[in-house]
């Protein structure tokens, strides 16, 4: 808390503007993910844009505040959730269509009655999964590049 306050006093403009910008960046990222199927964009781009809002937060408010907002465990869990969603849709299709059809096809997810609509929904699910993973991975990479962790220091002290 005190850290945040201090930065506020020092950099009023950046802090205020980024507080205003971050929700809009995230909204744009969600737009890019959802509209990926019918226009430019998609899960990867949306995920990167979403992560860039976290990067902005870190740059403006400092490591301590950012580390409190995005704990590493939650980030790891998000990374895996995205991959589960991504691969889970595919595995579900294979399992459901095992006796019926030939190849991996998102149309077999039992979401609606229309085959084509199922396929579009399956693709959207996959895009969302990719988006979540990419967001978590890019944030994690950036945090790790900036942050010198205690674990590494512990390792450094030990003689090899």
């Amino acid at each position, binding site marked *: 808390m005190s850290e945040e306050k201090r930065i506020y006093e020092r950099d009023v403009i950046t802090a205020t503007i980024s507080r205003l910008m971050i929700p809009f960046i995230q909204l744009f990222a969600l737009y890019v993910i959802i509209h990926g199927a019918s226009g430019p964009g998609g899960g990867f781009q949306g995920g990167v844009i979403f992560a860039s809002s976290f990067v902005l937060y870190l740059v403006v408010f400092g490591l301590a505040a950012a580390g409190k907002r995005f704990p590493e*465990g939650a980030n*790891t*869990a998000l*990374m*895996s959730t995205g*991959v*589960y969603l991504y*691969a889970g849709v*595919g*595995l579900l299709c*294979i399992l459901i269509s*095992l006796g019926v*059809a*030939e*190849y*991996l*096809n*998102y149309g077999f997810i039992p979401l609606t009655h229309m085959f084509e609509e199922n396929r579009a929904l399956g693709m959207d699910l996959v895009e969302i999964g990719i988006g979540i993973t990419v967001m978590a991975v890019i944030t994690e990479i950036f945090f790790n590049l900036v942050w010198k962790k205690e*674990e*590494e220091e*512990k*390792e450094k002290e030990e003689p*090899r």
Partner: protein
Amino acid sequence: MLSPVEQFPVLIIAISLLSAFTILVAGLVNKKSCCFISIATILLQFVMSIVILDHVLTVGTIHYWLGGWKPPWGIEYLVDALNAYVLVIVLFIALICAIYSKRSIEHELPHKLVSFYTVFQLLITGMCGVTVTGDIFNMYVFLEIMCIAGYALIASSKIGLKAGFTYLVMGSIGACFVLLGIGFLYSVTGSLNMHDLSLLLPPLYGNRVVQAAFVFFFTGLGIKMAFFPLHTWQPDAYAYAPSAVSVIIAAAMSKVSIYAFIRVLFSVYTVEFIQIYAPLTTVISWLAAIAIIFGSVYALAQYNLKRMFAYSSVAHVGYIMLAVGICTSTTLGLTPAVMHLLNHAVMKGCLFLIAGAFIYKKAELWDIMKFPGLGRKMPYTGIAFIFTALAMCDIPPSAGFVTILYLILAFLEAGQFIFAAVILFSVIVTFCYFFHVVEMMYLRVGVEEEIEKERGEIPMSMLIPVLVLAALSWIVGVIWLMKIPFPILDAVNSMFGLGVVP
């Protein structure tokens, strides 16, 4: 309607990817569980790969069209005899390595267990992906997944940092060349499917773009597999990586890169291309011959055990490429090359396991000069080392002997006696450098009291993989001599239209 077995190629990759991220989550709860998840996944994949091999040999090639899109448009996973065979080798080595890595990595990288197993599983995903895919761009992507995981794993220990970075720079250049080659092929054919390319390319063999693309593939994949003039990253990377990583990159990753080259050479560019541009095989053969001599002689000069094995690997990549270079002029075709993929994986895997076992015992035991008395300190590992060294020296009926036998048969048939001389020279040099190590371990007497104090083997979970691979390096030779796996070789040769002298 597909049989469930035909879903396996895609499942092998999906399971591996899921497992990598499951390890990440499980690592938050319990760090010790990572290893078991990894072993269980690889075991499942290994069983699936054996089922695939059986299916391919009995029923026929597996075509899997992702999303139901037909080949020239969609991505196709294609598993034939060569794929399935390489897949079995890769997953077997990965299984051995995962079992071995439990104690080894706990000892070497105690703070990085979770990330190690995650990246390890991603490496296996990449290797499986390269082997099963039938789409050339998909192959590039999986090759990059494999290599990025490889860079991270090599650099995970402190001494491996520089080697890892050098490999990263060279490997990225190689990957860029492969990407350029794919772009060149796409620009003239408009297709990315390997089988489709092999049908579209023959009228264009005179085209400069197609020839330039081949040069790009040769250079790029040559860097990835450490072929002779491009091997400079390899000795450091193999020597300074953590022991378990050395095993998997020396035994499995280089094989996957060689497989990728064989696939590009024979499935995209066909035998006709090689016959039209006959100097090509001459270039490959002579480079391979130089690689064999160079690797053997440099291995003789090393005092670092893992570096010695690394230079020996340069020589053995040369063996395989020499067999590839000679394949169009004999009736044996690709037989020696395909054989040596398995033989070298087993033998070099075992040697790197043993080198890792010595380092596990005492951190300074990478130096051959510190070996005196080691044979009595670690009796089982010592015996395993002697047996594998004898197999490397091509004593019949070991795995190494079978390769040499078929290589020399091929040379005699093709009339290339000079290559036979090169091989025999390499065998003699191999015997010299292994004898040097064995002499250091057994015949020089160490300080006696120290031996009594330090007697003790490595843990069972490390010893069993060593003994299994040491036994296999002889059993595989016997199996080859009994001609049990020859249906694979026949299928590979007939698939590529080899084994018939023009």
